[in-house]
């Protein structure tokens, strides 16, 4: 059984058209981009803030641009990319509205993964511990974690609706890391662990 990050990679790979132009925001060590370049022959570039990650990307031969994505994507013109990816990065973004707007300015589609804070395990953790635990934070303690955005699936969906963006496709990870294409029940917030959306510019 593949882990959620592995499945997410596969889903993104499935969505992205061969030989398209891809911008990966918060590309880390470039694993996803590298896969996309090898398997889909995309013309890809990563954006990273960390010098160590930049070195890793360069070592893989990936083009990478050091920048803070919260400060905008002014380096790129409108529609410079077919896809702009924000995978496992939303939780550290300070200005999600402007980042998503920027993604849909420079790209035709935006791919965004979201971890659902309302997932039942998180609720149990809070109930038992009375606080946000390190597992929920992914890394660090309350005072030094870069993870500052805790969002529920329902909140995120209504946020997308308010922003007027169009959901072109989505996958949801249920317990046991099973991925499904559609869920629209009142229990979403309880049962979905993570979700990944492909967004378009709306009408």
């Amino acid at each position, binding site marked *: 059984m593949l882990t959620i990050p592995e499945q997410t990679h596969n889903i993104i790979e499935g969505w992205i058209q061969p030989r398209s132009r891809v911008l990966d925001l918060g590309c880390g060590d470039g694993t996803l981009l590298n896969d996309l370049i090898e398997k889909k022959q995309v013309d890809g*570039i990563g954006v990273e803030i960390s*010098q160590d990650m*930049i*070195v890793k990307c*360069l070592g893989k*031969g*990936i*083009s*990478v641009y050091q920048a803070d994505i919260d400060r905008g994507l002014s*380096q790129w013109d409108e529609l410079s990319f077919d896809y702009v990816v924000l995978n496992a990065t939303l939780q550290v973004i300070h200005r999600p509205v402007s980042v998503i707007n920027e993604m849909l300015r420079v790209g035709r589609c935006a791919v965004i993964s979201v971890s659902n804070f309302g997932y039942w395990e998180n609720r149990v953790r809070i109930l038992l511990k009375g606080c946000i635990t390190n597992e929920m934070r992914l890394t660090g303690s309350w005072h030094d974690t870069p993870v500052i955005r805790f969002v529920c699936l329902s909140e995120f969906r209504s946020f997308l609706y308010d922003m007027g963006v169009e959901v072109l496709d989505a996958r949801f990870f249920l317990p046991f890391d099973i991925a499904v294409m559609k869920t629209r029940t009142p229990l979403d917030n309880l049962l979905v662990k993570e979700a990944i959306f492909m967004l378009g510019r709306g009408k």
Partner: protein
Amino acid sequence: MENIVETSILHIDRPFRLESGEMLPGLDIAYEAYGKLNEARDNAILIEHALSGNSHAAFYHKGETKPGWWDVMIGPGKAFDTDKYFVICSNVISGCNGTTGPSSVNPATGMPYALTFPPVTMRDMVEVQRLLLGHLGIERLKSIVGGSMGGMQTMQFFCDYPSIFDSFICIASTMRHSAQQIAFNEVGRRAIMADPRWNGGNYYNEVPPEGGLSVARMIGHITYISEKMMQEKFGRLRKGKDSKAVFRPSFEVEHYLDYQGISFVRRFDANSYLYITSAIDNFDLVSSISGTTRFRGDNRARGKGLDTLRKKKGLVISFTSDWLYPSQQAQDIVRFFSGLNVRVSYTEIETDHGHDAFLTDYVQVSVMVKSFLDSLS
């Protein structure tokens, strides 16, 4: 045993035509090379020096205690690994370290050229190096790299001859000088020309305009380091207060600049400073490659042939505290080359060392360069 190197001189006995149309009857090119050219002759890396640099980029000259100016980057196991690469560096035309310049003797008159030396452009600097590459039998290079003015030559060369380079590395540089950058250079030039010893450029049999040139260098040095670094290094510290004369340098920073100025005049020619800074100010990459006229040979890009740059690789590096060539200018370089479909990477290194970081912060630069070069092969 340290690595020992000697500067070689290539004599060109044919006339050399400059971009301005003026001719030089012949030309010397001073260069050094480190490492070995492989059998496929494709492991060469060309190093481009900055305003006050020279061809002595690495290793030691016999009997010297100080190595070349970028020795921290060039050598066995270093960023430009001489166990793998054949590294070449030459002195620019109009310089004063072995390559023909205003202080060289004009064979027609038997006197130094002085201001009869023709004006020089970044493209002329590049063309001279092409003669050198031809002489060395190198038709393809792994990379071309330079910081500051070296970055300008790098970009010019890469765009003029897109087919011969696999990649470029441009550090702390710009595609064109801003008004402020031109202004700083102009003050330096005026300082030289205001020195009576400059004498319209004819000083080669007299005492050179040391006062003017050292002031030019002092101004330069202020722009090469950051305000923060200057403050931390010198603050308001004083030394040598016992001097009776008024207006003697008493602040540490004054002594520092004084020292920089004096040590510079011992090794640099004032007229070369005028020619090279003018070439820098006149440099404008975009307009130089978008002109319609063709100049010397059909290999020249001039806007055409630029599509061969597609999928080539570039690495652009800037430094957070470099206020001479701020990061925005580096980002413009990335934008420009990305537009030509070059696969450009960009990193901004956090440092307090200002523009000089391209020489001092070699640890971070090395890590980037090494990763980048390793991925090319």
